[in-house]
């Protein structure tokens, strides 16, 4: 089946609107958040219009329907990720919370009995991240290291935007308790060799957590095939709503991990002296969860699955190849990250030199915005990475399943405008 981008675009009502005095919207900010197809918008609308109730506790028909919407979403996400069982899927509010859930569970492990022993951290233990991580996959581990006395270490990146694996055997060693890394960089686009790193980590008994915020929307993911222990992604970058994220973990780990948030629904029994907890995934889902958002996420997963993640990746690879060619031909433009489209995903970050020197990303994005082109400017929550490349900020255009070559052309044309304006 050929990839019909025009048909796909019709599913996204927002792509029809104009911005800034009648300019056609060119949305190149999907790595920030994706747009939503009407199927997702309608699923949320249908849930609130017809089935709204609380889940797991209401004994009426609406409660059954709401529970079905919520638990049905879990099943769909489990299949989407290739999970062994739907109880391995924990809903969170976003991926930041998913990563924090693991970090706080590990922080709570010291007082959680024998079964949580493997999560206990202390002085001498090491957590390994990478220099290309989003702040969400750095800060929770810094905090955990501060609380436990463990040491944070990290992989560097090469000049051309790949993970520097030259010291992998030194970095991943007997002291390593956890390796946390992005599947795909939100700035460089680099797709990291997760399976290879996971094998090394497991050889020394370390756990592996993968930030899939940028990969899950854009390429097929099979968590068992990747051979990792934790995998997180967020709903709003995969055509779904904000307010819902996913933590997948192997069931034996979820069984052994102490809870993160305490509250309703996560318990087995509560007495005034102490409580026991529900089995996973509910042990990690305290309080009323984002039910409508789960219904929306289920529709989003259906939507991308129906198109096919292989097809989406193939289409985007072509788009990225085209964008790399066009962008690198712009005088004064420096593209960050790999130029080989096989090695990179949808984020295309760059700096731009004008007649008077480097043009600041805020100024670039302001001119692009006036032309209707929406991109992100700043450090994209990856300040250490920008520092590594000797810059404070960059401009990032990111493509998704609905973008076209004509939109890349519009970006390049608008960059000319930027250079004229600040020339």
């Amino acid at each position, binding site marked *: 089946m050929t990839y019909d981008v025009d048909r796909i675009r019709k599913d996204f009502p927002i792509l029809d609107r104009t911005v800034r005095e009648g300019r056609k919207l060119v949305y190149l900010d999907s790595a920030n958040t994706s747009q939503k197809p009407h199927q997702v918008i309608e699923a949320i609308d249908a849930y609130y219009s017809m089935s709204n109730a609380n889940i797991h506790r209401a004994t009426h028909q609406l409660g059954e329907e709401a529970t079905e919407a919520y638990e049905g979403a879990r099943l769909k996400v489990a299949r989407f990720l290739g999970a062994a069982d739907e109880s391995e899927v924990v809903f969170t509010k976003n991926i930041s919370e998913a990563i924090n859930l693991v970090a706080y569970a590990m922080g709570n492990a010291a007082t959680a009995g024998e079964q949580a022993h493997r999560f206990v951290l202390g002085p001498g233990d090491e957590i390994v991240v990478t220099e290309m991580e989003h702040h969400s996959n750095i800060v929770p581990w810094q905090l955990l290291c501060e609380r436990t006395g463990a040491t944070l270490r990290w992989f560097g990146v090469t000049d051309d935007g790949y993970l520097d694996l030259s010291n992998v055997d030194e970095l991943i060693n007997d002291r390593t308790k956890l390796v946390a890394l992005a599947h795909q960089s939100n700035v460089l686009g680099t797709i990291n060799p997760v399976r290879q790193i996971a094998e090394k980590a497991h050889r020394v008994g370390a756990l592996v957590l993968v930030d899939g915020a940028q990969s899950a929307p854009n390429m097929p993911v099979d968590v068992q095939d990747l051979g990792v222990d934790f995998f997180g992604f967020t709903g709003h970058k995969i055509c779904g709503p904000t307010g819902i994220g996913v933590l997948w973990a192997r069931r034996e780990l979820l069984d052994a991990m102490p809870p993160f948030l305490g509250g309703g629904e996560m318990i087995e029994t509560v007495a005034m002296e102490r409580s026991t907890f529900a089995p996973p995934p509910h042990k990690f889902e305290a309080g009323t969860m984002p039910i409508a958002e789960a219904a929306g996420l289920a529709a989003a997963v259906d939507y991308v699955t129906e198109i096919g993640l292989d097809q989406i990746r193939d289409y985007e690879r072509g788009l990225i190849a085209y964008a790399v060619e066009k962008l690198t031909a712009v005088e004064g433009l420096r593209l960050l990250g790999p130029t080989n489209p096989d090695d990179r995903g949808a984020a295309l970050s760059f700096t731009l030199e004008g007649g008077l020197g480097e043009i600041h990303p*805020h100024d670039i994005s302001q001119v692009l915005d006036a032309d209707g082109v929406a991109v992100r400017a*700043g*450090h994209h929550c990856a300040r250490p990475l920008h520092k590594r490349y000797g810059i404070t*900020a960059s401009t990032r255009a990111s493509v998704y399943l609905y973008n076209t070559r004509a939109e890349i052309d519009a970006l390049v044309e608008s960059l000319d405008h930027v250079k004229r304006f600040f020339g």
Partner: protein
Amino acid sequence: MQLESMYQEIILDHYRNPHHKGLRDPYEAEVHHVNPTCGDEVTLRVHLDHSGGEPVVADVSYDSMGCSISQASASVMTDLVIGKTVKQAMEVEDEFLTLMKSKGEAEPDEDVLEDAVAFAGVSKYPARIKCALLSWMAWKDATAQANGTVPAEG
């Protein structure tokens, strides 16, 4: 067109040829401020002259990295505050803050704000207001420290 309402020629002029840029001695307080969304930074020094009784802003020097709005704003700010008493300069700062919070609705007083009236267009763009305020906030902080109303950093 909207773009020109933000990037007025005065702003672009200050951006291309910033006034009072570079760090100078003497100074009584130095601060470092950052815009967390884009990583823009300014290091700013304030020198106050107390010889006439009421403290006067004798010099403001700075080193900064950032967009045209933040660079131009620093340049305009130094033009406005240098030579004024701290009290007068704080009044100008207050007027500028009001302008930046106005969402493009204010009629700025050119007698008070001079070149800074050009930033009225920026106040319509919430994402850029911080850029325009970065150096002003740094100046206010440094001046308060230099004037002894708050203790100096470290």
